[in-house]
């Protein structure tokens, strides 16, 4: 899978995964607060944030596997930092990542427009929900409630992963930190065109 990856890309992906692994842990606390307020559906409100690294890594690196691997590594980092969910979190990470990867695969890893990113966020929502249903025993809940959870999670995936992920990556590209990646070149070209037309 890593055949045509440069070491630079792998390390950048890992660092992104590490940063977001930490952020994921922090959001777990926020999730607990929300759950306290709204019940189980509280998690679904912010569930999208837990897919964001897939979208950012894929959008920046633009190679097959970026979405799955980054999400998996982020989960592994959470485990290494002592997230008590333990090794099964890695499995969850793979499954979430696969959802996002599916969206990118459908465009053969060529299209990274906003809609594809949003679809990738929703893809993660779907796979993660199926997994949660199986492992979490959602069948004990009323079907209406489960459906509501699913819809909220889809929206959260679209907004917090897809939109926010794009926004963060674009802000990063504007700092010039991504100049040696395709996204950086895109931003620079856009800037130049802007200067020429101005």
């Amino acid at each position, binding site marked *: 899978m890593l055949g045509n990856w440069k070491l*630079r890309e792998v390390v950048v992906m890992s660092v992104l995964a590490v940063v977001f692994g930490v952020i994921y842990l922090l959001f777990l606390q926020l999730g607990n607060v929300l759950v306290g307020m709204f019940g189980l559906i509280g998690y679904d409100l912010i569930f999208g944030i837990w897919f964001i690294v897939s979208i950012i890594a894929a959008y920046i690196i633009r190679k097959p596997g970026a979405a799955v691997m980054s999400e998996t590594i982020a989960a592994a980092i959470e485990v290494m930092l002592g997230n008590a969910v333990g090794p099964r979190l890695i499995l969850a990470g793979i499954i979430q990542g696969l959802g996002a990867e599916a969206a990118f695969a459908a465009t053969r890893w060529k299209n990274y427009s906003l809609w594809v990113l949003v679809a990738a966020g929703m893809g993660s929502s779907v796979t993660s929900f199926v997994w949660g249903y199986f492992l979490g025993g959602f069948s004990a809940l009323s079907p209406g409630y489960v459906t509501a959870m699913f819809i909220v999670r889809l929206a959260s995936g679209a907004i917090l992963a897809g939109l926010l992920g794009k926004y963060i990556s674009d802000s990063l590209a*504007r700092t010039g*930190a991504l100049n040696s990646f395709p996204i950086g070149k895109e931003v620079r070209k856009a800037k130049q065109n802007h200067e020429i037309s101005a």
Partner: protein
Amino acid sequence: MKFQRNELLLQVSDLLFRFDEDQEPVLKNISFEIHENEAILVLGSSGSGKSTLAYCLNNLYPSSVDGIQSGNILFQGRDVSSFQPGELNQRIGLVMQDPDAQFCMLTVEEELAFVLENMQTPRSEMEARIHSALEYVDMIAFKHRMIHSLSGGQKQKLAIACALAMEPEVLILDEPTANLDPASGLELVRTLKELRREHSFSILIIEHNLDYWLEMVERCLILNSEGELIFDGPTRVCFTEHARLLAQEGIWLPRAVEAGLKLLEADLLNTSSLPLTIEEIIQSSCRLTDTIKFLKQDRISEKTDSPVMIYELNKISYTKNHQALLKEISLSVKAGEFLAIAGSNGSGKTTLSRCLAGLLPLSAGEIKFYGDELEQWREEEKWARLGYVFQNPEHQFVADSVLDEINYSLEASIHGTQAFEINDILKTLRMTDQLHNHPFSLSQGQKRRLSVAVMLINGQKVLIMDEPTFGQDALTAKEIMEFTVNSVPESGSIIMITHDMDLIDRYADKVMVLGEGRMLFCDSPSKLWDAPEILAESRLKLPFLREMEKMAQLCSEGLYAVK
């Protein structure tokens, strides 16, 4: 004297390198050769492309920055890009310039093990080789330390140990002594010499502190500010015949050559050829006392005895992770005073300076700033008076381009924009071409310059600077010091950490020496130079002029014979 040339190792022809299609090339038409067992010094002003050249030789550039390169680089007759990945890097070892950016593991031991693993060293040998690599740089006590908790100089030593552990055929050192204390610098040179006697490898040194290396290198390469190779020849020829050219380019000269140039101009030498060492100056001086008096005249020491106390430290201590990093330091700084802080690597200088700036909380004792406790100061008011220059220049930056960085300072500046014109600042920094570049993509020296400049244009009265001149070429170092001294008013003060004894000798009113977190000495520099036991304990050395004075005295007493 060797006359026969050893076998050819590296051959560079017509090398041209640029980072981006629409930028000027950083290196132009570079051609030279490196033979087996040669020691070469690469000189050039800051930003001339020395580090870039080092990366190219090792084939890390252009691939890892997407740069554009033309021309050939052959290693043992083979193009460097045709080697198996990893093979070339093991045969051409590189110690990078920025000690903060070259590690990938958590602890010192793991980092060295990583290097050995990459080389497929048999496991049974690893332990011993880790030990000996650490021994070379005197870091055995740090084997199990977390890398991020090492001081700047300690990191640099570790980077050198990693390169030595690879036993490369060519070793490239990019300013290896920039953050080292004087004794460590000398020890490094001695270690390398010994290693070369045992293993014989070629070595390419990029360096501003020339004095360390003179006895080791035979050949010099000079890059000009355009990135062209303008000289390739024996060291002696380089410094005796081209000294003026080097000075013009802003490149450091060996201290003796620099002194010699001045003496020649003042007609105080009885030869027309430049001296390379102190001995040669003494030998060719007409009247030694006059010579020394002449050289001493540009020392700056106008002491105003002001009653205003800027800092009063009362037995301050700082402890981190159960380790006492600072122990009961008491000190006072008066208005108008220039305080230098010196000491060996890891003695706690940076830690102390951060405490002074209120960036670290004290564990005990108190600091008074303008009579009031430092912690009681309102942030805005404190920073309107106090400037701080970090040891790592990157820590200073808050914006995305050089221009934004300067603008940010101008906006925050207490004098407002009138005092400085942005173009003047850029010209002084010699960075007009880098206007839109990200501060992180500058050369190490450019970063340092920018980080000092953004602090200076803020216009604070009190400046704390952590090694502001390391990695600078001669011209910039001089400009930084002048700019600093001029922009801080009489009523203010400068507190500067440095490993450069000549700077202390020239500028400081008071010097404080730290050793393992304790204050070993605090008085005028001239008293320090008369205290050899403290110099030895704190791994410092005499400044050039004092050394010359001492030697001259020994000569006149007939205790020392000049050959």
